[in-house]
């Protein structure tokens, strides 16, 4: 049960994020909701790095690790790389989104999604 705690956290983060994106009208809040979903996705990926050993260490492949003995290993390195990459992408998209929201505000003085509907139909 306790081992699955991260997954519950993932579901909670993603669900809260989606709730915000779907229900909240403020554009900044939508950006925050997206960041929350992203946090959920990153947590999910990093949780996958756990590969069941007792004494896990950071995924740095040193000869030291091999000497620690049976049952010890480093966690899977790939999910770390994935998470990192998705964080980088997240930074880029969030920055871009915030820039757009700011520009929209400067042009129209609108910060609510249900008022920002010039393009419709």
């Amino acid at each position: 049960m306790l081992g699955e705690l991260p997954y519950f956290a993932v579901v909670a983060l993603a669900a809260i994020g989606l709730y915000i994106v779907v229900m909240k009208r403020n554009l900044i809040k939508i950006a925050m909701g997206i960041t929350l979903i992203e946090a959920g996705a990153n947590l999910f990926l990093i949780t996958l790095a756990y590969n069941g050993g007792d004494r896990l260490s950071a995924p740095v492949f040193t000869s030291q690790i091999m000497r620690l003995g049976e049952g010890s290993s480093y966690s899977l390195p790939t999910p770390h790389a994935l998470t990192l990459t998705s964080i980088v992408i997240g930074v880029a998209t969030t920055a871009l989104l915030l820039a757009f929201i700011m520009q929209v505000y400067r042009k129209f003085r609108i910060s609510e999604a249900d008022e920002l509907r010039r393009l419709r139909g």
Partner: protein
Amino acid sequence: MSGDLIDNLPAVIVAIPLLFAFATPLIGKLSVKLSRLWALLGVVVTTALMYILGWEVLSGDAVVKSYVFGAGGDGLPLIGDNPARIAFSVDGMSAFMGLIMATVAFGAVIYSFSFVRKYSGNDKFFTLLLLMLAANFGMVFTGDLFNLFVWFEISSVAVCGLTAFRSNRGEAFEAAAKYLIYSTVAGLVFLFAIGLLYGQYGHLNINYLAGAIGGQEEMMMVDKIALGLMVTVFALKAGAVPIHMATPDAYSEAPAPITAMFVTASQAGLYAVFRVSFTLYGGNLDITGNLIHIAGWVLIILGILSMFVGVTMALVQKDIKRLMAYHAISQTGYMLLGVGVGLTVLGTGKFDEFGRTAMTGGIFHIFNHALYKGLLFLTAGALIYKAGTRDLNRMGGLGRDMKFTAIFFIIGALAISGIPPMNGFSSKLLIYESVFSFNPVIGAIAMLVSLLTLASFVKVFYAAFMGPRAKGMARGEVPTTMLLGMAVLAGMILVFTFAPALVVRTLVDPAVNALAGSTGRTDASLTLLTGQGYWNAIVFGGAMVLAVIITLMVRMLGNKGTTAKGEGKKPYLFGNSTEIDGRPIVIPGSNVYWGFTKALERYYRPVEKFHSGIVNEYVFWFVSTLGVVILAMVVL
């Protein structure tokens, strides 16, 4: 060295636009003009390399060029059972998509050359354009699921940046923000799907993953959910209907050359749908057959919705680019339909009967669509460039000055409407006939949609090119490089119009084989066999020329003295004058199909409400579609 270069091409083709993109701002600091030339050079080099790679891959049988990062080309090194490096692999389908992207980008960059001259920030424009090109190539070349996600996001960022290029328009920022929210949520959902598959199988490489999925006793719940997630996400990127709403916004607000490339970016999403459902899940049809047949039905339903809703929404638009954006969605429906039918019958006897034809049609349509839609968006850009407005009601009489643009527009409009003998007809014929064998009703819908497409392009042609000159239209033709960009695409359309079977043989068949795991190509002839009949554009073209000659001869037999003069040439308005205060009366474009839309009001009212413009609702529809698709995958 040259042999080495070809081995490295899959990565180099992605990297060269990146190299040029990163250098463009530096060069732009020295001279903006130089940065334009530099970007042009970058696209030319990339296109040339892409043609070399395409030749390598498509000329052989089932050639796969792969490149593994940093590994000196000896395949994927393994750590334990897991492939340890990122691989790019280019098979028939990837090369096919890459060729399309390179060609459209080439046309777009030539067009941009003078198009962007009147704006500031040219270097940033070209940086993002090259970045977008690289991201498109990356999406279709990658052999790694996570890498696909990375390119997906880079593509989104580049596209949104370019959508907001006209920073004097607030709407551009609105469209960019909506598209970014939409595609970021989708991208994160895709990330969850990757996580599910990685957690289950420990692979990210598509081929390894396909082996692992096909090697099980029976399908796991995780596989079904992951497929549902991925199909929906990439359908969003491609712009399929219940989840398309931000796409027309972004299409219509982006500058014209970007929209032409945007089409190929969306087609990269389409590619990803096909790649996921065919390659990832089609490894062992005994196990996954049922699931991907359901996925095929999902694609068919999305396709029908896209075709119909796209074209009916296009009919009522008065913004020329938005109209064309909805057409792009409608045409995407054909591709989804064709390939969906192929997917639904994959592995059964019906695949050879008509499924392969349907897939050929769908994939051939990708090719045709990229060309004529690119051309149409470029002509729309030319119209806006001269008219200074995007509103069809305020345009008029542009055909008097823009003869070449009008000709290019007619070529594009005939091709998109599937009028024989244009290239759009060749692919649509394959789709009509095979889909008719699959289900007659769907085939009939596909034809109806073509009719409506023609109707709405008649409206655009009427509103923009015909009639008297409207107020505020600039005189003269657009600059030469813009014409050149359009001419590149129009010329290709004309060439491929008369050699559909050749295109199918050299480009489409390897792509179909790469996806469906089948072999064989059509015969080297100019006649395209559709399974039910055959189609030869040259014979048809000859017959058409003959018909035109006969018509002209019949016309010459007529009475010369009866030609109308003076008022007789003007339209009949119950005897009333056709001018008010010396200005001719013009029926605005948006009133042309007034009766039609009025009669279908009960259809249009909810559908227009559906495109509400509120981004929350868009995301809600995405989540709902996701739920429905996953439910279908899991329950059925």
